[in-house]
């Protein structure tokens, strides 16, 4: 009835000082995908977190080495699937830079609008998922109500709701849907009305604030040293918005603020994302009525060949700075391609900022780092 040997066997995976070692993931409700964290615990307090990656590693970098410059863009949609438009944009911009392709104004403006819609959609999903990590289920559904409108717009535009593959070197694959502008305006109207609901449900909630304030503090110098970008670094007071530093597409002609919070805790990162959504709305409002007429794609050759050399393109995804580095030998396929994914660097800081806190705090910290595992593994 009581099999003692088997029970003792399980205690062998205690740490060297008798700490409890818990495997969180790869199937765990809070890791949003297949992140595997090996957490060393002293009671409820975290002593060490060690990420084990690779459960969704598809070796996209190796795959791209045998794909042409038209084909490899579609693979990048599968990296950070929540900002697939932005990933596509990065690759398209890089090929355009390498071949000096002129992009029509219309394409630039539409790309910017779509990128910002993608950013809002990503942040909406993040708000829901983050609240769910903290045990509040309801905000998820509220956030998805607005996100649904964006995915509907995306579906009209390019037929897909998640992995768009709409942006090609030289511009866009098709022209926009005739109802694109009215639908986006309807979305803006709805979003402005409903965004207060998140404030009521989440931001102002006493329990939410006590769970996130002062939790997972990341100092500015650590954020820089660990290579954090995006809302994670901006929550610590680091200017790192690529849209400001190296504007691409139509970002140089729109007005928006780079949101900076200085507290560096989970709540600051949360506030950065919430305010960023409003800035995205501001950008879209400036552009939606001013989409220039004309071609949606520039003149390109059928076979794209990059000149011999090295190219690097940075864009700001919803999670931070995405860099695409291509070494070209002059052929139709890249010699080496490297994606500098924001999530990879943001994950590396997790052990540093969550050490010494409780398991419950790990959820708040991990939630506000906004990790997308396919983006980290690639």
């Amino acid at each position, binding site marked *: 009835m009581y099999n003692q040997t088997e*029970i003792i066997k399980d205690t062998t995976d205690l740490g060297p000082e008798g700490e409890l070692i818990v495997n969180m993931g790869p199937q765990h409700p809070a890791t949003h995908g297949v992140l595997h964290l090996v957490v060393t615990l002293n009671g409820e307090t975290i002593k060490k977190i060690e990420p084990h990656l690779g459960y969704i590693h598809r070796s996209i970098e190796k795959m791209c080495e045998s794909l042409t410059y038209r084909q490899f863009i579609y693979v990048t949609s599968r990296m950070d699937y929540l900002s697939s438009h932005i990933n596509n944009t990065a690759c398209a911009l890089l090929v355009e830079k390498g071949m000096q392709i002129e992009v029509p104004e219309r394409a630039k403006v539409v790309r910017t609008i779509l990128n910002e819609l993608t950013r809002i959609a990503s942040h909406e999903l993040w708000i829901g998922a983050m609240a769910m*990590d903290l*045990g509040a289920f*309801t905000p998820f559904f509220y956030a998805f*109500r607005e996100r649904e409108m964006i995915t509907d717009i995306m579906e009209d535009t390019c037929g897909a709701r998640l992995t768009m593959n709409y942006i090609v070197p030289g511009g866009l694959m098709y022209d926009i849907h005739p109802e694109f502008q009215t639908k986006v305006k309807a979305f803006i109207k709805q979003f402005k009305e409903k965004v207060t609901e998140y404030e009521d449900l989440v931001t102002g909630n006493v329990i*939410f604030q*006590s769970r996130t304030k002062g939790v997972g503090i990341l100092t500015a110098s650590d954020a820089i040293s660990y290579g954090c970008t995006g809302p994670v670094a901006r929550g610590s007071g680091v200017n790192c918005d690529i849209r400001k530093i190296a504007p691409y597409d139509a970002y140089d002609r729109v007005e928006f603020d780079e949101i900076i919070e200085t507290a560096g805790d989970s709540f600051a990162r949360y506030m950065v994302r919430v305010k960023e959504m409003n800035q995205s709305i501001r950008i879209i409002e400036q552009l939606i009525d001013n989409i220039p007429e004309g071609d949606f794609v520039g003149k390109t050759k059928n076979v794209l060949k990059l000149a011999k050399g090295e190219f690097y393109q940075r864009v700001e995804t919803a999670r931070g700075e995405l860099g695409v580095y291509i070494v070209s030998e002059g052929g139709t396929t890249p010699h080496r391609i490297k994606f500098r994914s924001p999530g990879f660097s943001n994950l590396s800081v997790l052990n540093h900022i969550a050490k010494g806190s409780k398991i*419950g705090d790990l959820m708040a910290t991990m939630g506000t780092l906004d990790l997308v595992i396919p983006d980290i593994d690639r």
Partner: protein
Amino acid sequence: MLSLESITKTTQDWLFAKFSPQIALTIECVIVILLAITLFAVLGLVLVLLERKVAARIQIRLGPNRVGPGGIFQTAADTLKLIMKEGLTPDAADKFLFNLAPFIVMMVAMLLLAPIAFAKNFQIWDINIGVLYISSVSSLSVIGILMAGWASNNKYSLLGAMRSGAQIVSYELSAGFAVLTIVVLTGSLQISDIVAAQENGWWLFKGHIPVIIAFVLYIIAVTAETNRAPFDLAEAESELTAGFHTEYSGMKFALFFLAEYINIFIVCAIGATLFLGGWMPLHIGHWENFNHVMDYIPSSVWFMVKTFFLIFLIMWFRWTFPRLRVDQLLNLEWKYLLPISLFNLLLVTVIAIMGWYF
């Protein structure tokens, strides 16, 4: 008027007329057991469905709507599914304790049913220490949870069980003190006495602010005691997957699930009895006509309405708040709720001695 009171009285009279007292008592016991089990099954089905519907309304969606009209048979279908599932026992688990734990949790919930007055003179056992009985028996459920957590031989389960242990033991104090305020006002531990004392007005209304404080404390404490959100740390699914019942499946899991809902029902029933007058109808001062109309509603309906109102309140909490952290949870109890309830008890004692209540 057909009331539960008359039915029980007729049944008893008939049984004692027909059979010898021993046999009549045995038959009565069997009837009570059958009724209790039926009540459990029905309550489980109704409460789970209610929770899903309440959650759906709060979350701007529809909830179950496929099985039966408006989805009312959804939980029955779920139960059927759970019964047909294999009840896995992990290899490294302590098999005896692992299988025993759900039954202990269930048994505790069943025992708590005894002193609850469902309607006028409709009570299984009107024990003279009713309130004491409830608070002592309800603390036994922590044994079942700790047993489940330990026997599963799973780290998540163990953490969940430990959290649950700390939580239930701490919050019992506040719940106990909140209950004591009513005992002080009534001067009796017997449930029927407490209900009778509220004939001319519910304690919540005639006990001044201290009783309202006690009521709020009671609701917070029992939410924590039944491991409901925002205090659901024991089964915090984003942290501990499912806490103490991670390794359970099939009907054994269903028993835990059922026990959770039965416990909610019981604590809400006790709350309704203590603060909202149990089966007493709502009477307002000297509005004779109004009071007559209220009297016409059966007492069992009054009891159920009050209980389900409290259940709805607790469900509302769950779908609105995020979860507390473990240290915040214990801080809340030991640094805020416990001092407040101690002081509150003192205040109520003064009120009771001076006779300041209505």
